[in-house]
């Protein structure tokens, strides 16, 4: 498979937007402009961006609490994302959800989830609807290594398998669930072997190789529409702490440094240059665009109104 220049551009831009979005978000915390918490995916950009860019609007995704890459990958509006992060009325959820609940049904995102593993059962339902309507689309469910120990993982993969539902289960294994290393939360090394319990296919990929993730997602979609669900494990690493407040005493600086060398953006850049897909200048321009996009989003959010308490009962019931 050889990806077009357009695709590379898209992937590179989205990864840069994601990183810029999060670095900016982190700064906004420091500036005291946001309350609550956030979970950053810096270092993991290739996972959500690679998978979601390979999807169509009609494919659904279920995002995690660490899902800015997933949302940007699925073409969510960055202004509305930032506004939601700031709790503004113009945000995706009118300021009611915050960054743990960002969703955009219009691009196929059925929402980020604050509950570890919370999206898994929902994904089976979205896929059931696709199957019921004989759509040629799939549902992609993101979740972490930690989530794969929840009962919801087991029940959802089993149900999807029994009903042959078109779900791609994507486990972003970043080696930790909060402070708990995978080695202490499960007794296996390759999470993809769990697929066997459900009689479905499981694969494990380098989670920092956006090109390969993109390609494998295209293949997975085809496979799934034919054969039913599949488990894709993306091995990656989170550079920042688990959430805003995390002293990270559970891992070494060396480990973090090692993984920073495997930076997915840097890797993609190298690939692009080596294969002469774009020039250094072109890439710099994309990087700049990402920065501008986020600046605009910050401004949009800053100038947006707060939600009003008078509207609080809206949306409790349809």
């Amino acid at each position, binding site marked *: 498979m050889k990806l077009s220049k357009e695709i590379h551009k898209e992937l590179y831009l989205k990864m840069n937007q994601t990183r810029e979005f999060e670095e900016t978000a982190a700064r906004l915390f420091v500036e005291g402009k946001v309350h609550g918490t956030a979970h950053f995916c810096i270092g993991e950009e290739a996972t959500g961006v690679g998978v979601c860019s390979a999807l169509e609007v009609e494919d659904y995704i279920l995002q995690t609490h660490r899902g800015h890459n997933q949302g940007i990958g699925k073409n969510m509006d960055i202004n509305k994302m930032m506004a939601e992060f700031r709790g503004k009325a113009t945000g995706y959820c009118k300021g009611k959800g915050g960054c743990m609940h960002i969703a955009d049904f219009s691009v196929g995102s059925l929402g980020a989830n604050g509950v570890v593993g919370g999206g898994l059962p929902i994904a089976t*339902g979205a896929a059931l609807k696709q199957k019921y309507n004989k759509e040629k689309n799939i549902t992609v469910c993101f979740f972490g290594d930690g989530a794969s120990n929840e009962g919801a993982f087991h029940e959802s993969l089993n149900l999807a398998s029994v009903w042959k539902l078109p779900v791609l289960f994507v486990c972003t294994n970043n080696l930790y669930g909060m402070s708990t290393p995978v080695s202490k939360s499960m007794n296996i090394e390759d999470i993809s072997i769990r697929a066997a319990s459900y009689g479905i296919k499981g694969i494990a990929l380098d989670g920092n190789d956006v090109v390969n993730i993109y390609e494998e997602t295209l293949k997975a979609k085809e496979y799934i529409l034919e054969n039913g669900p599949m488990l894709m494990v993306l091995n990656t690493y989170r550079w920042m702490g688990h959430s805003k407040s995390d002293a990270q005493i559970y891992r070494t600086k060396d480990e973090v440094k090692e993984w920073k060398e495997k930076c997915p953006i840097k890797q993609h850049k190298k690939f692009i240059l080596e294969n002469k897909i774009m020039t250094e200048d072109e890439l710099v321009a994309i990087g700049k665009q990402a920065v501008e996009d986020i600046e605009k989003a910050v401004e949009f959010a800053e100038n947006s109104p707060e939600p009003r308490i008078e509207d609080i009962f809206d949306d409790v019931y349809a």
Partner: protein
Amino acid sequence: MREITYAQAINEAMSEEMRREKNLIFMGEDIGLYGGAFGVSKGMFEEFGPERILDTPITELAITGCAAGASMTGLRTIVEIMFSDFMTLAMEQLANQAAKNRFQFGGQGSVPMVLRAPGGSGTGAAAQHSQSLEAWVAHVPGLKVVIPSTPADAKGLLKASIRDDNPVVFLEQKLLYRVKGEVPDLDEDFIIPLGKADIKREGKDVTIITYGRMVQRCIKVAEEFAKDGVEIEVVDIRTLVPLDKETLISSAKKTGKVLVVHEACQTGGFGGELVSVVVESDAFFYLDAPVKRLGGLDVPIPYNPGLEALVVPTEEKITAAIKDLL
């Protein structure tokens, strides 16, 4: 009018709605060929086939979330949890996801699903198969909660629940499944809107506010009292959320004496809500006795049939409570 059982009424409601709405599906454990643990869905698999009547593995969390996901994306769903006690396994998807999705996503999408589950004791199934957990779900904004007491109510309210665009928890009463009652003819599109209490028996001396299988029991007691000239009004709230406060309050004002009866354990039960609604309102000034609650004893349901019968409000206890009020 023809008479059918409560179970048949539920079956009819589901079947009729499935006939008119092709996007409606129904899933649960052993609901297909087997017809459901209580036989409620008998014949539906044969009529609607395996694509719309989905037998599931034993996996309450997943099927509840599956229903929510399908409903968020365009289908309408009914999910049966075999005993309401097993909602304990599904509360995450029900309370954190189905109930909150619309709000937390700022109004994007809705979750038109009905979670049906039978509750209550009296079948000798002991502590883990006999609970009445309506108070839990009534405390979760985003959910509606229905408990019908007659076949007609079961049918009309279930049809309304299925057409509702919100997640509705529809709690059936095991001991009523085989009870017959008048239900409008099949060709009528018989709907009872959610949020309307029903005065099952009019009276002027005392108000009993109740729901579910206690309704008939209260009516029986009321009929006994009527022999002595005491006219008890029996108000069946039918839907806990939304609650028809007006009907409760005006009945309380009329009689000045209120007894709240439910099967669920008294402490923390929905009775507290009902009492509060009355005493917080201007009905307070019309009351000439303390409002009384009569709930189940605060114990797990015991197996022994003699004990089991005595831990919920009996006719004797209801009678005594009314006498206290008079």
